[in-house]
């Protein structure tokens, strides 16, 4: 550190608050609040509104509110899931390579699931 080319002021600034310190905490709770509505709605609506057969579930998903609610549930849930798993990885996986690979996978997997789910809901909704 004594031979660093950076000035002490630069280092102090770099270590200071970036004004984003509580972003993860707030996002985890904001998504949690929405999920307390979205998840029970989805479970009750699909259990009471369909018999699980292909035709009945397709008919359910063609209603705009059901398609929108399913898409919101998937997106909110995957966002919440990614934040939660990130903390688990940071707590337990200490090797730098394993940690980086795990964190990258924890970004890729929810993104892939989100795209698949949204495209699938959209396809059923427009009836292609």
């Amino acid at each position, binding site marked *: 550190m004594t031979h660093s080319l950076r000035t002490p002021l630069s280092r102090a600034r770099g270590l200071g608050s970036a004004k984003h310190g509580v972003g993860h905490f707030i996002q985890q709770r904001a998504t*949690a*609040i929405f999920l307390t509505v979205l998840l029970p709605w989805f479970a009750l609506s699909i259990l009471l509104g369909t018999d699980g057969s292909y035709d009945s*579930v397709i008919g359910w998903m063609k209603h705009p509110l059901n398609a929108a609610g399913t898409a919101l549930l*998937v997106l909110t849930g995957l966002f919440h899931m990614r934040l939660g798993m990130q903390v*688990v990885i940071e707590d337990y996986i200490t090797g*730098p390579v394993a940690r980086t690979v795990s964190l990258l996978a924890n970004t890729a997997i929810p993104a892939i699931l989100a795209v698949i*789910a949204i495209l*699938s809901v959209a396809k059923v909704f427009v009836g292609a």
Partner: protein
Amino acid sequence: MSMAGPQAHDKRPLSPHLQVWRWHVTMATSIFHRASGVALYLGAIVLTTWVMALASGPEAYGAYMAFLMSPLCLLVLFGITAAACYHLANGIRHLAWDAGKGFDPKVSTATGWATIIAGAVGAVLVFALAFLA
């Protein structure tokens, strides 16, 4: 070494709480919350692949539903449902804590038992709605 993150190559012992403390309800609910959250990663994969099968047509949907209704998958689905019900109930408990309410030891122990019961009862209710109604 300083580039590898705060815990990498750190030889200090990790928190030995599991070996030191006897199990109690508030500790168990904390551990279950994390475990159920990790389990719901599988739940998200099941939900996504189910919607994908639905969008792929009646044959794909029928085949995937037949797979999900096999005994082993039903057992896994019941576990995912219990994890979802528990994580939802205990998540609401966490939101109450974030609002500064429910920290009293007697209250937090009682709500802890309530979330465990909610997880079990919720999973049974969901399966009853799915297969009996």
